[in-house]
């Protein structure tokens, strides 16, 4: 087992990894930017090294500085968290070449599945259904029009090097297709450094259902069920739940087996997630694979009774899959709400700044994964996620009731948060019925009846 791990990340996920390491008796080294000197993960780590100025490009994305810190700190392994360098095959390769363990899949697997087009090809090859689409990169707008006509509108133009809901353009007819083709390429070049795009059939208002994969280094691959991430705003997930309200045992078996088959076929190791789109007729299509730990790993942990970060560390250290993970079965229901430092009353404008007062809910069945605290200054340089609230219930409706109760206690002043937005969703009939899709948030917010629900407490005012 490792003696010391460097956490190449920040915020709530850095805290999450540090907690798992501490429980395993592993020493922790945090790296941080100038803006994060007072961050909780820096305070709680055994050691901390400043690696640069505030902007990510000058700190958290600086491979050379992270590797220097790893050398100076004499670490055995590096955990990349999510985002930043977590799916950067070059980073994984550099770490491996320095004889340090990268807590994640091998770099060549990250490379393969990171290319969205290549990933689709792998899926097709292993017999996993994929959304009808182009046979690879679309070279010019004439080919784009041909492919789109063949698939049938509406279609989605997607960046090959994209991900996380970025670098996409929908097109409903040939005119918008041609325009979308060119603007998607331009955007892709800017955001990901590669202009190549491919085309997929656009499934209107699908359900976004993903499967958690855990694979050790001895060839054993299992899945830990699904998460429904259909509650999204502008292609960014806001609420996730496990299990999915539209899942049936038969569909779970089919999708789970497809996920495991695909993971095995590419030689996957460690944790990963396979994302599917499911249409109204419960037909599923492979969308993409995320070769990292996800933000919403928490709800799988609660329902399947495991610690996925500890399992990641064990797998990276060469241990076989833990028995309790290998034979895990789902029990109870879990929901996660992502709390962002954004103002839902003002088009979700970012709201960085000093948290004047922070009180997080507690009580039975409530889990908080957050690096926030009273007096903490949320920096403007990074994503706006300040915490995740997870509730567990014996049934879906008790998990929802619990989330509604807990959000009413989640009290943060000094900055704006999305707590009132989540509180409104917990009261929505459509959500409570489990009859929602990726168009839900848009519909809810444009309805006349929509109202944000601020917390009830008036502490410290």
């Amino acid at each position, binding site marked *: 087992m490792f003696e010391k791990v460097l956490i190449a990340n920040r915020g709530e996920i850095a805290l999450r990894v540090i907690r798992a390491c501490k429980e395993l008796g592993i020493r922790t080294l945090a790296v941080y930017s*100038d803006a994060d000197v007072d961050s909780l993960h820096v305070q709680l780590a055994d050691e901390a*090294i*400043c*690696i*640069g*100025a505030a902007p990510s490009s000058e*700190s958290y994305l600086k491979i*050379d*500085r992270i*590797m*220097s*810190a790893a*050398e*100076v*700190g004499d670490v055995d392994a590096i955990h990349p968290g999510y985002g930043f360098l977590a799916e950067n095959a070059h980073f994984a390769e550099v770490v491996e070449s*320095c004889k340090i363990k990268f807590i994640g899949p091998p770099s060549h697997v990250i490379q393969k599945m990171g290319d969205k087009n290549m990933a689709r090809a792998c899926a097709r090859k292993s017999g996993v259904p994929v959304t009808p689409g182009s046979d690879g990169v679309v070279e010019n707008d004439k080919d784009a029009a041909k492919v789109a006509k063949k698939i049938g509108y509406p279609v989605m133009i997607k960046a090959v090097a994209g991900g996380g809901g970025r670098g996409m353009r929908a097109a409903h007819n040939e005119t918008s297709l041609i325009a979308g083709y060119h603007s998607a390429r331009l955007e892709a070049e800017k955001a990901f450094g590669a202009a190549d795009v491919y085309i997929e059939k656009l499934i209107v208002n699908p359900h976004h259902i993903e499967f958690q994969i855990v694979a050790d280094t001895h060839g054993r691959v299992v899945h830990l069920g699904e998460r429904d991430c259909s509650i999204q705003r502008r292609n960014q997930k806001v609420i996730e739940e496990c299990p999915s309200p539209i899942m049936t045992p038969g569909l779970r078996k089919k999708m789970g087996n497809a996920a495991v088959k695909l993971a095995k076929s590419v030689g996957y190791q460690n944790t990963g997630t396979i994302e599917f789109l499911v249409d109204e007729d419960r037909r599923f299509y492979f969308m993409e694979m995320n070769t990292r730990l996800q933000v919403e790993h928490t709800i799988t942990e609660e329902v399947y009774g495991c610690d996925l970060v500890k399992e990641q560390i064990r797998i990276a250290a060469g241990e076989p899959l833990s028995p309790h993970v290998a034979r895990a079965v789902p029990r109870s229901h879990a929901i996660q709400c992502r709390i962002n430092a954004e103002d839902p009353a003002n088009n979700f404008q970012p709201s960085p700044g000093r948290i004047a007062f922070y009180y997080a809910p507690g009580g039975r069945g409530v889990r908080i994964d957050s690096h926030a605290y009273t007096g903490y200054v949320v920096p403007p340089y990074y994503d706006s996620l300040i915490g995740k609230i997870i509730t567990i219930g014996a049934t879906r409706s008790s998990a929802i009731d619990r989330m509604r109760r807990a959000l009413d206690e989640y009290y943060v002043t000094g900055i704006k948060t999305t707590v009132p937005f989540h509180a409104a969703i917990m009261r929505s009939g459509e959500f409570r019925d489990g009859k929602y899709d990726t168009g839900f948030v848009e519909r809810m917010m444009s309805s006349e009846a929509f109202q944000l629900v601020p917390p009830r407490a008036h502490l410290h005012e």
Partner: protein
Amino acid sequence: MKKNDLSVFEMEKDGFRIKLQKGLGDQPIIASTAAPAVPNGPATAGAAPTSAESASLKEIASPMVGTFYRAGSPDGSPFVDVGTKVNEDTVVCIIEAMKVMNEIKAETSGVIAEVVAENSKPVQFGQVLFRVR
């Protein structure tokens, strides 16, 4: 000092240095240190500069993460010492990162007032290496 309304008093003589400052509140802060006698001696435990003096000194901060070395080789003489005159291109130290020896330039001009970082110890981004008058 109070009588003469002095806030800082500094004296250096024969390898001994003392600094007195009329500090915050009415407490005088006394800091003293032995100045380095030989170039290859142990790293200077520099006197914590008084806040009044720090404000006027320029800092050379580390642009990277690595190990700080005062000399170009284990038995070489340090690039600079307290009292050395530097200009922008003067190499003041080496920072070793990933087995690569990086020569660090002063990027300021003046006279080295203090060697802050410790020889062969790790330094992080932004850490103060030297203070320059």
